[in-house]
């Protein structure tokens, strides 16, 4: 058996849920990330018998900030009917924001500061902040000090036509200026991942997501979204393509490195809107409330590397580390949930873990970590097919992993994800028996 560290208080996952993840510009188009966040929280609370005032902290991951709701955790919590007396904070850690939300909650529980944590994440890519050019912004701010109407003429001084055009933010690394797609494309080449491999993995993800949806395997983690003002009910994710084929994927052109790149729109995750929420409790608190926990949240770690060359390789570092802390081998893990930013990125991670060279050079260990069996990996689809609302993915991964542990009668699950900035995360769940 494992030898995880003993903590005075154990953190358990009681329930986790998400509203369906939708392609940006579809049914959630008119909503704010705040709306998605409160819908996820409300849905989770409605199906659980806990008094919202007994929650000790609301933690929410969110990446693309809307200025009006900069502490979106607080606004979402209040909007979902959580009383004023419950503090809330927001975490921005790129794609692992809600992983950090969960582990911050675990820390609060382990250190005896909290018994009930609501960890969550939300993101909309349908309404990202589009800004005016710097020069224009400066003039607008300066105009606040204008006193006479005549002074407004100054406003146009030095502004060219281009300064009036809006500026769309790109998903690029601030430190390197490289987009994530470019970086992933380079990494795939480094680890010898072919276009064919990537398309196959993407197709697998889409087909598995379609199958899981059809068989109702995701129902447990889904709460229907009721979209105001018409209150149309959204029951399922809409991003997976059941009918995708190698032929269709093969026709797509490289999206980032032209003409010889391997990453296309078909084997990358798409822009997504969505939110998720989970309840983490101190074990005895949950039991006293008559709740049956799904899983223990055991050891976890965060890692970081060079945002240039190893931007999305975090899981290859985090995974062996967390296994070691838990004294577990790859074979002990029954359920793997890996975040799929790009098919090429997942496959690079898998190759790295299975590489003797990578083990020696980068991990300073004698033997490779091993091969993750495909039949245990992301069997209900992943970010490529279900979608990837940055701030909300972490809670989805953990929730799905816990539900799979129970359904597949396993003991340990490993969840791992990469994030912009060259960071990564891994956590081990142990099924609650």
């Amino acid at each position, binding site marked *: 058996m494992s030898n995880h560290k003993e903590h005075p208080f154990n953190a358990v996952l009681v329930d986790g849920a998400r509203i369906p993840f939708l392609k940006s510009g579809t049914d959630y188009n008119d909503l704010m990330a705040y*709306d998605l966040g*409160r819908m996820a929280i*409300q*849905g989770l609370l*409605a*199906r*659980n*018998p806990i*008094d919202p005032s007994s929650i000790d902290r609301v933690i929410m991951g969110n990446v693309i900030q809307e200025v009006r709701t900069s502490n979106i955790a607080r*606004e979402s919590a*209040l*909007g*979902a*009917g959580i009383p004023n007396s419950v503090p809330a904070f927001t975490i921005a850690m790129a794609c692992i924001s809600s992983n950090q939300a969960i582990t911050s909650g675990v820390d609060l529980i382990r250190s005896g500061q909290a018994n009930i944590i609501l960890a969550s994440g939300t993101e909309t890519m349908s309404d990202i902040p589009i800004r005016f050019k710097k020069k224009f912004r400066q003039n607008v701010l300066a105009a606040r000090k204008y006193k006479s109407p005549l002074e407004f003429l100054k406003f146009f001084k030095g502004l060219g036509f281009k300064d009036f055009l809006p500026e769309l933010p790109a998903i690029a690394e601030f430190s390197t200026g490289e987009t994530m797609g470019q970086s992933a494309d380079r990494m795939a080449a480094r680890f010898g991942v072919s276009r064919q491999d990537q398309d196959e993995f993407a197709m697998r993800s889409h087909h598995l997501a379609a199958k899981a949806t059809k068989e109702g395997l995701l129902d447990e983690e889904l709460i*229907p979204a*009721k979209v*105001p*003002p*018409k*209150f149309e*009910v959204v*029951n399922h994710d809409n991003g997976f393509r059941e009918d995708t084929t190698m032929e269709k994927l093969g026709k797509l052109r490289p999206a980032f490195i032209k003409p010889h790149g391997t990453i296309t729109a078909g084997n990358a995750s798409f822009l997504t809107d969505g939110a998720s929420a989970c309840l983490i409790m101190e074990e005895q608190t949950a039991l006293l409330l008559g709740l049956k926990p799904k899983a223990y949240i055991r050891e976890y770690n965060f890692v970081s590397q060079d945002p240039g060359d190893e931007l999305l390789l975090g899981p290859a570092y985090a995974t062996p580390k967390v296994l070691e802390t838990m004294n577990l081998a790859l074979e002990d893990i029954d359920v793997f949930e890996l975040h799929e930013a790009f098919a090429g990125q997942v496959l690079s991670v898998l190759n790295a873990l299975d590489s003797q060279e990578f083990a020696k050079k980068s991990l300073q260990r004698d033997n490779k970590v091993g091969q993750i069996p495909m039949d245990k990996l992301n069997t209900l689809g992943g970010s490529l097919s279900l979608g990837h609302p940055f701030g909300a993915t972490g809670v989805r991964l953990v929730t799905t992993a816990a539900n799979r542990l129970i359904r597949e009668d396993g003991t340990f699950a490993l969840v791992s994800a990469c994030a912009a900035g060259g960071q990564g995360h891994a956590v081990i769940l142990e099924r609650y028996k």
Partner: protein
Amino acid sequence: MSYINITTKESVAILSLDKPGEKVNTLDESMMAQFEEFLETLESDDSLKGAVLISGKENNFIAGADIDMFKARETAEDLEQLSKDGHSILNKIEASSKPFVVAIHGSCMGGGLELSLACDYRIATNHPKTVLALPEVKLGVIPGTGGTQRLPRLIGIQKALGYMLTGGNIYAYKAKKIGLVDELTHKDALEEAGIKAVHKLSESGPHDRKDKRSFVEKLLEGNPVGRNIIFSQAKKKTLGQTKGNYPAPLMIIESVKYGYQKGLKKGLENEAPLFGEAGATSESRALVNLFFGMTDAKKNPLEKKVSPVQHIGVLGAGLMGSGIADISINKGGYSVLLKDQTLEAAVKGEKVIWDALNTKSKKRIITPFERDQLSSKVTGTDSYEAFGKVNLVIEAVFEDLDLKRKIVAQVEEVTNDNCIFASNTSSLPISEIAKGAKRPENIIGMHYFSPVQKMPLLEIITTPQTADWVTATAYEVGVKQGKTVIVVNDGPGFYTTRILAPYMNEALLLLEEGASIEFLDKSMKKFGYPVGPMALLDEVGFDVAAHVGETMAPVFNARGGKSSMKAQELMDAGYLGRKNKTGMYTYDGKKKESNTNIYSFFGGNSRSNPDIETAQHRMALMMVNEAVYCLQENILKTPTDGDLGAILGLGFPPFTGGPFRYIDRHGAGAICDLLNKYSEKFGPRFKPAGILEEDAKNGKMFY
């Protein structure tokens, strides 16, 4: 302890109104006296620049005049004097050489608003609890301390008449927009804003107020001809609505008109006798009694046995279910799981609630965020998941005994032992629904009226098995939901449906005898019902009416009643009423017209109406007599419950005071004679109830 606590800040007298031992401030003699005293001090004390009137209560400025004071005076002369006393003080405030600023937070009603109108400057908080109104008309009187004079001069005649004739609420944002208040501020800055305003007024003279009326309003109100048009239109519209049953609205119009013809001073002098006259009418007295009945009903007689409720489960998300969910979250502050068979159906209910809140946010009564926060308290669902946490389940599903029993079993399965099961049935006996239940002591009837958001009554039905804590808790929930609650014993149709059934039956019999649809509705509206029986039948639906008729028939047949079978026949022929647009009226065209096709069920197209008084009495007395039967058979516990139930649930004319006060007013003897006369002529269903005959013999009254 004194009513007004006076302190001085920055040379400004702060008058904090805080009626000792009460939740809200009401204007009474002790306050008036203290005010009078202060006025003298203010005039003589040179160090004081002016005064700020503010409330020491939470979320209340002044709830209006003390109604006990009003009730204690019965003659027109005494009431007139009351009005004159008020005028005298308000005139002094208005005439004072020093500025009076009123700082309003919370409800500011009736006399409270009239007091504010006499001040030089009005500040209100931009808070959802800040509401202004002149609701006097609801008590059958007119605003009697200058309201009919000062309000139209401030906001315009048409707007003022609108508010005074309906007694409608004016929220802070709107009040500012129409010029009723001069400034909005937040709650904590209120006093400071008041002080500043006094200084400003004292330095630079009276506030220069912008005329906020629209161009058309100014045009029409600016000359005597235009004003006459306004007054005659208002009168016409009022008569159309009141059918002449309520004198107060006409007196309001009269008072405003007089003031514009003769000037403010004469207008005020004329207001007092009009107030006295209105207050002494039997209509006003009945409305005041109704008010007291409603106030008393807010007190839970079993307060100590209430068990806490946090989560309510509502089954059925239709009109009824969503209405119950609405008042549960918005008024009661409960969280609600709204269940229907499909998620889509449940979400429709959620949408109804959201839409209403969204409308409120558009009117700036609440913010969009508050809309989100409130609407998050209701969650539509298609499963019983999480019903384990629910303390009270209210079912509003189809009226079918087997279905309801099935639902009782399902709910008992998924809820804990302390969960109350309430049925919103309108006719099925609760004890029948409870048959076979595992926890019959937890079962109770909570009969709401449609539309739930508007209808003020909740009829609670207890069976001999219902536990006291269950009744106590249901009562508490009802009061929190903003309802006036009556508790009655179980029986077919309980109280309200039981007295409605013979009334509707009589209407159908009259139709069978040859009366026309319009005639029947017109007669009863003239009698004082808000809706006529035919239109009501359409709303209820022939299917429901037939079902109720069938449930109730044994009760009436045992007394030799004559049941019209027409509702059943119409239903069998596919007529359902408004819901499928085939009823007594047509609902396709723009204009509501009677559906002449339906006359083929009632003897053909040639109609002959009886005289209106006979028709009115036949229908109304069926209801009145049945109410007495309910008291006699212990369905009703008190006549007050009976009067409240009939007025608030069924629209029995409020100015009569309810069936029992109606009898008292006309005399049990006279009513008995009429009933006996009809009994001979139309059949034994009119036979007076036993206790009514006894009362007639002994000259007894119900009150």
